[in-house]
């Protein structure tokens, strides 16, 4: 596929005796929003983390934007093109929201301070908390922290954004504010790979949905096909009946 921006070919990964990914293949096209769902321990996070090489693969091949993830040189290059948002935000607690967003711009992208600060303010506006620039992470709510984390990733102007259960550590009333930011991104045409069980978001934004189970991708579908009736696999149906109710 010529327009695919992420190619994952026959990737396997194990932790000791635990097989986390077993011969997994997947392609993501430019501008797609791919959602990965599946039960706990099925390998969703591991797959996501392999895409920016936070985990190394045991076998198989991953190519991101034409760059094969093999040499160390390439890895830093790919990471600067791929933004990642974590379940627990992982903001830098010793820096303000603004400094969280400017740090990598300055040390990785070598942008001048002024330019980095301008972009940071712009992004804080985009995620809806322009007034929190000088707040430390501990002074922000979970939803605000996650939005700063999204802005921090966007400041690198990535081509791809990875989200690993970005709302599962949030109180219900904060989930929408984060999902709204993600929806905006999706509408702007950002390529996204999202692990999330927020069905509202999945229906509204997903182009394709992959269902993972026991280290495999067992089914691929679209939001329209995401119902008990249309899913072929018994395991998918079981899992769906839990999260759709």
């Amino acid at each position: 596929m010529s327009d695919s921006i992420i190619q994952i070919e026959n990737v396997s990964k194990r932790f000791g005796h635990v097989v986390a990914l077993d011969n997994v293949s997947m392609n993501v096209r430019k501008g797609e929003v791919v959602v990965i769902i599946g039960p706990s321990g099925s390998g969703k996070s591991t797959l996501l983390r392999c895409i920016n090489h936070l985990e190394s693969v045991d076998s198989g091949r991953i190519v991101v934007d034409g760059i094969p993830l093999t040499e160390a040189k390439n890895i830093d290059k790919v990471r600067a093109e791929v933004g990642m948002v974590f379940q627990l935000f992982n903001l830098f607690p010793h820096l303000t929201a603004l400094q969280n967003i400017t740090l990598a711009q300055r040390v990785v992208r070598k942008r001048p301070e002024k330019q980095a600060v301008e972009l940071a303010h712009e992004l804080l506006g985009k995620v809806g908390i322009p007034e929190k620039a000088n707040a430390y992470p501990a002074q922000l709510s979970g939803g605000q922290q996650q939005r700063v984390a999204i802005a921090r990733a966007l400041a690198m102007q990535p081509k791809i954004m990875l989200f690993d259960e970005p709302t599962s550590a949030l109180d219900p009333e904060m989930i929408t504010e984060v999902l709204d930011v993600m929806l905006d991104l999706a509408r702007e045409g950002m390529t996204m790979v999202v692990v999330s069980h927020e069905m509202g978001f999945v229906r509204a934004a997903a182009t394709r949905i992959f269902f993972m189970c026991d280290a495999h991708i067992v089914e691929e579908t679209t939001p329209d096909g995401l119902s008990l009736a249309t899913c072929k696999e018994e395991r998918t149906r079981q899992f769906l009946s839990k999260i759709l109710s």
Partner: protein
Amino acid sequence: MEPSLASRKKSIAGPSQEAQTPALTDGVDRWWLLLLAVVVVTWLLVRTRPDPYLRIFTFLLDGVRVTLGITVASFVFIMIAGLLGGLGRISKNPLVNGAASIYVELIRGIPLLVQLMFIYYASPIVLRGLGQRLIGVLPSVAQWLISVKINPFAAAVGGLTICYGAYMSEIVRAGIESISKGQSEAARSLGMSYFQAMRHVILPQAVRVILPPVGNEFVALLKDSSLVSVVAVADMTRRGREFMASTFLALETWLMVALLYLVMTLFFARVVAYIERKMQFVR
């Protein structure tokens, strides 16, 4: 750009927090009073009984300078050794990790006094032996090795650095390991290299964690620096011995030496506590 530390703390500390940690907002740290008491006692002794206390005090002053000089100079090198040793201990490279681990384990097993003796008295013999072997190969280097004189001050700083560097390595390692893995993952996922992530994300946080034990090490080092008196360094302890040898005023001499050490250690302990409070932040 960055708000001052004081205003930052004010804005962070909510009412509930003030109730939990009164020490934070109390202002005056009461242990300063103990230091003040020791200073007053010393001053009274010197003023009311200048003979012998003023004489002892004046005689010891040179030693105070040497003690502080050795402590501060060693501490700078100890921090560097501890940083390298600590990074080595967490390195995934087996060679680097092995070297750092052996250094830490070996050095921690040998008393400081023995290490100082070895550096000052035994290492010239080793160097001379090496020089004699090399005389045919590299005559100039060999000559230098044979004739090299160990400077007592350098030997003292070297010995303290090697010894305390091992303990500091462990403190640094524990500090770095106390920072959650998510922090380095976030930094790396933004494209930062290992060293960029260490420098901008991990170490600034680890510093706050390791500050109390590092402060303790500084005070311990100040006291242990008295051991360098055995390698011909005229520190405060050695000056005390010299004074006693010529006057036989054992009680008065060692009382004054003890008081001066106390003034220094109590003072630095307070400084460390002060910095610690200033650097606290809410997680």
